């Protein structure tokens, strides 16, 4: 498949040591899927289901035990080349940890620009940084340049992280729970920003989350992971409305359901008063 980011038969095993005995944990078992430009694939699953491991393999922070990552239909080398880094970028989960507290905001965006566009002059670099900041709605961009991460709110920091991922000119972005550490009130804002950027640039996004509601809102296709395996996949509405796998059903029931609002509270009250509701 050309013009896509694809993983094929991905396996990742971790060897766990417990005293002298070893055991093997299959963090990811036989995962295959493709992300196409302009489309969003959501990877949904509970903690420890292997979602983040897939993200780390795609961004070449981790090497797979077997299987490969293909970019535009061609296998990619085990360790990332600069060209691969330019095409595939990542937005991390925790905006408080993903920016270096020592460095200014402009450092974070300038470095990837400098690495992937070595020909830029200092002035061009500066205007590109400002332009990127404004593209993620941090306006006016100049006022953010010399500020340090701790002076920004969580949402602003995550915008900086998104700008950093866009800086090399990436075609594919892996977003590993990009809003789970943010206040509920600003989550939609950050997600809409990602969606806008995606539309404007034709980005392919791998959206990793444990939240079915935003996955449905945001993505074209949903993959449900459970214990390292992709147990269900399909168009998002299809997966949410007609879940076939046991685990997907459970996941859906665990989500807050507007029809059952207050049910739990009423149950607790009735138990405390000692009588049936």
């Amino acid at each position, binding site marked *: 498949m050309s013009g896509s980011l694809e993983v094929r038969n991905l396996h990742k095993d971790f060897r766990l040591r417990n005293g002298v005995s070893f055991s093997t944990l299959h963090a990811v078992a036989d995962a295959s899927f493709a992300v196409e430009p302009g489309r969003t694939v959501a990877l949904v699953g509970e903690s420890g289901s292997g979602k983040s491991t897939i993200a780390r393999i795609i961004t070449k922070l981790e090497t797979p035990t077997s299987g490969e990552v293909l970019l535009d239909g061609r296998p990619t080398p085990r360790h990332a080349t600069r060209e691969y*880094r330019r095409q595939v*970028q990542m937005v991390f989960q925790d905006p408080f940890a993903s920016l270096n507290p*020592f*460095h200014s905001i402009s450092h974070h965006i300038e470095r990837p620009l400098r*690495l992937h566009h070595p020909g830029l002059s*200092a002035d061009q670099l500066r205007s590109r940084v400002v332009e990127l900041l404004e593209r993620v709605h941090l306006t006016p961009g100049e006022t953010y340049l010399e500020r340090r991460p701790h002076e920004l709110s969580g949402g602003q920091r995550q915008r900086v992280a998104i700008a*950093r991922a866009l800086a090399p000119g990436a075609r594919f972005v892996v977003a590993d729970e990009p809003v789970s550490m943010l206040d509920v009130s600003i989550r939609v804002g950050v997600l809409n920003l990602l969606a806008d950027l995606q539309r404007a640039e034709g980005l392919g996004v791998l959206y990793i989350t444990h939240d079915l509601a935003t996955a449905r809102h945001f993505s074209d296709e949903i993959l449900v992971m459970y214990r390292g395996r992709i147990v269900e996949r399909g168009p998002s509405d299809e997966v949410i409305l007609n879940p076939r796998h046991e685990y997907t059903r459970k996941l859906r029931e665990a989500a807050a359901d507007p029809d059952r609002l207050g049910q739990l509270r009423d149950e607790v009250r009735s138990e405390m008063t000692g009588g049936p509701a």
Partner: protein
Amino acid sequence: MADRFAGIRYLMPRWSAKLGAGLVIVGLITLFGIVAPFFTADPRDSSNKGLLPPSPEHLLGTTKLGYDVLAQLATGTRGSLYVGLLGGLSAMLLAIVFGILAGYFGGWLDEVLMLATNIMLVIPGLPLVMVIAAYVQNTEGLGDFARSSTLVALILGVTGWAGSAVVLRAQARSLRTREYVAAARVAGERGLRIIFVEIIPNLVPLIAAQLIFGVMAAVLGEAGLSYLGLGPTNSITLGTMLNDAQTGQAVGSHAWWWFIPPGAMIALLGTGLALVNFAIDEIVNPKLRLAPQAARQQRRATKAGKGVAGGGAYA
């Protein structure tokens, strides 16, 4: 274009009485070591009468061989500071190389580097320094260098880095897993650049604390070596002064002006450096600052009769 030093301010220690006192002590001693030798008499001039008590002519008296103690103290302070700084710096460099490389890269490199560190750590310090010093000083072909303070400083540096390396390795291991390091890797940064640009700036307080500790250890180590007669013979340091005082039986002849000044100088320098170190520790670990503060506030509240902790919850 980016403000490369944007982070410096956040690494500076907070002003406190401890820091102030430490800086004043260290600053005065350093100033004394740098400036005083220009104004005092020749420390190697033995034409004075021996064992004179302090007088306007010889402010700190003279030694048995007729050296002026003040002149020796000034030059000795300079010599000790030189040994301390060089020894501390070389220990810090080795600790950075061993500790941070081991911590960041992990794997077999970590195993090898930590094996070396652990070996250095379990060998008792002073005996090792004595053996190396005695051995090197008797090596043929080193000439004047064999008994110079530079060599003593380097020996102290080479034997004194292991503890700092362990501390730096632990911290580097923790920083390595931070998301900003992963983000730098995803951006395409190379390993060494990540170490120097993303990791080391966040270790600056720790490295500074280790450096100060290293300087202290080198000053004291040199004093110990010299006292045992293994120090530099062609230069004057506080340690060689104490050695002279001991062999000249200064205590027996009640020549307090001979052994108290160098001893007090070493103690003061150690105190000053330790105070600065405490202030730096408070940046590395804010609890050190906040817990005593909280305890003070609680005590005050209890005294004012407003306490709710019952006196038992002081941090």
